[in-house]
């Protein structure tokens, strides 16, 4: 058994240690908010946080997250209340097709956790591993910067 926390909830999984974390989340835990875009760590659609760090869950073997705290898009809203970054993604039109959105939100969330007042360059760097084909990134960057204003 491999035990870890997902969005604050402790889970134990009976799976080979080499199984992809992405598959465990989607197929074992039914948490399909985390997406697969490429399966080789290039697109960031599967981004989740492990102990606060952004990782591509398609490149992580589940055996590596033993006793770690994971955060996924499903854990962002609390009691049905959207977090600031989720709300600005809606308000600024940062989600179009939405397939990159969960990963993008996790990358943005991690950034804002460690740096509540990022510059535009900080934002571009933070989401540099998350591909979006719909928005040209303009409104995603605006939405993240808007959270900075709200936070301060």
């Amino acid at each position: 058994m491999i035990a870890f926390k997902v969005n604050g909830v402790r889970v134990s999984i009976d799976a080979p240690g080499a199984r992809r974390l992405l598959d465990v989340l989607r197929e074992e835990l039914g948490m399909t908010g985390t997406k697969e875009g490429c399966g080789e760590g290039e697109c960031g659609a599967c981004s989740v946080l492990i102990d606060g760090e952004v990782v591509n869950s398609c490149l992580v073997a589940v055996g590596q997250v033993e006793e770690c705290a994971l955060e996924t898009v499903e854990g962002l809203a609390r009691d049905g209340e959207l977090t600031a970054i989720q709300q600005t993604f809606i308000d600024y039109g940062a989600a179009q097709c939405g397939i990159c959105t969960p990963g993008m939100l996790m990358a943005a969330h991690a950034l804002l956790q460690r740096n509540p007042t990022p510059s535009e360059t900080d934002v571009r760097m933070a989401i540099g591993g998350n591909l979006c084909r719909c928005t040209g990134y303009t409104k995603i960057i605006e939405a993240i910067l808007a959270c900075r204003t709200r936070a301060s």
Partner: protein
Amino acid sequence: MAVPLPSEEAKASVGVSVPRREGHDKVTGRARYTDDLEFPDAWRGKTVRSTIPRGKLKSLTLDPAFDWAQVVVVTAADVPGENVVQLIKDDQPALAEREIHHREEPLALIAGPDRDTLEAAARHVRIEYQSLDPVLHLEHATRELARVDIDKGDVDHALQEADTIVEREFRAGHQEQLYIEPQGAIAVPSDDGGITIYGSLQCPYYVHKAVVRALGLPDDRVVVVPAEVGGAFGGKEEYPSLVAIHAALLAVKAKRPVRLVYERHEDIAATTKRHPAVVRHRTGVTKDGTLVAQDIEFVLDGGAYCTLSPVVLSRGAIHAAGPYSCPNVRIRARALATNTPPNGAFRGFGAPQSQFAAELMVEHVAEALGMSSIDLRREWMLRVGDTTATSQQLNESVGTELVLDAALQNAPPVAVPSAPNLRHGRGVSLVYHGSGFTGSGEKYLASTVAIECTAEREFRVLTSQTEMGQGTNTILSQIAANALGVPYETVTVAPQDTSIVPNSGPTVASRTVMVVGALLADAARELRDKLTTERPPMRVDKTYVQPEWIQWDDERYHGDAYPAFAFQCTVADVQVDLDTGEVRVTNLVAALDPGRAIHPVMAEGQVEGGVLQAVGYATLEEMKMEDGGFVNDRLATYIIPTSLDAPKIKTVLVENPYSGGPFGAKGIGEIPMDGPAPAVMAAIHDATGIWLDELPATPEKLLVALST
């Protein structure tokens, strides 16, 4: 909540950036895309493809070393209906029988309980081929898939009279749509022998027709339901028909749901791309810069099958002269077949290739005349009353001057180089893009929409227009709400399930807002009028009737090609590193005439996203081909722009209503893709003095040009 009666006083929702309908689900991870849908006893499917670009299939055998009882295998012999993928021509089989025309040709399908079993099974399929010499390059292609000839005036005579003739050849390569959600479909068989398809697709009724035909089922036994779609850009216009047929064939044989979701590398290797193109221009002008003749040859590489090449060619050809008024135009357009994976729909649909050439041609003529290319555009550009290459007189909503002025006014000062190896430059382009199907296309399509009102006075929009990120659910609700005179919140959109919604045509061709939206607004107004005298529930269906004034000659390619055009001017600033040949697009201004922006934030979003795809087309995105297959079929090797590559993009919407559009709106889905590539290439010239007439401007090409 008390639902108000329709009234003229209800708050207008058109022109307001209301919350996206499915926005909440998309930011919480609750939106369900194809691969998120759960079917507990579903198997997975896999496609076995050719490994040679051309030849004959001698045999396909199953190695007895594998236990085939664990899986099901489908070959051409198992296709119960016609073995074709329904589209313009019937040339593409669902599964190859004998002839192999490209390297990714599907030969067999396997379904099994898990990935490992599938992979093991696929390794035990033995295929014997007889190879034939393939045609891999457009230069060697001779078989014509489609042709379009457009003639206006007398080009030969005008060229004789011209003071200056400029000739130039332009090239563009493949481009991959690269929606972040790969292709996928799930087929679920029912007890009555029917089948339901859930999938990532733009055109539910295209898929419906294709599955009905290949499976040999009656219309009412096939239902197509789009899941949430994770990007499409044309890439999910026709290809999903093939994926759906494959999933359906497997599901019927396996007697259980089958999930066929492509891995990224298969998606890049096998699915349709933007057509590579060669465009040759001869342009005649007088000494003072008057445009007298445009002689244009436009050739597309269609790949192995016809797919949508005739219509891509048509749209590319119609836009090939650019948004300019010229009395004498000759356009000769051909799509030729090669033994490469078939090319197909991609945002812009031929116009990005042809207008890339047209816009750089303006630059070359300006240089030959010693004039500013902006002045030349002002001299040549279409204005109200002018005629296009197809002799269509434009009578309203011609935004050329508006967008040119707006883009130039909003462009910041050109940057000053910060290091000796850096050069900065600026380029401008002006493009147009017709909304809706070409010519008589909408007449033949005869789309139907419906709107209904329940007894509780809740309104529901019924169309087959899919939401793929561009905002259909939201915008059609806004249009209906405005026409009904009710709040946006009281209108919902029915799922685009073919058993529920009428066929309002495909979600393509910049047609959803202008064509379907106008039809919906008509239906909504009729419903509003009926509600003043009758009690709900009630429903109004409305079928498109082409306005009398639209006259189009399919034979001569003459007349009103599109009811209206959107216009865009792009100003692109680049920084070129002379040491590395690297081009960075640093800043980009796009001024666009959308007629009317139904939802300004989403309209900007369309522009920004399309513009960045075009920046990728101009600078990064290059499919490398070897032996008829794509070498860089992975995201690590096919590079699209990241947030670090993306320029600052400023969008300026210059409203200029079109009387036939809903509240004045025209289509803007595709035009953002048309203009940035030539603007970037002109900016590279401005920075370095080098004309690259071939997309993309890779460091390799630029370094070669810089060293000569």
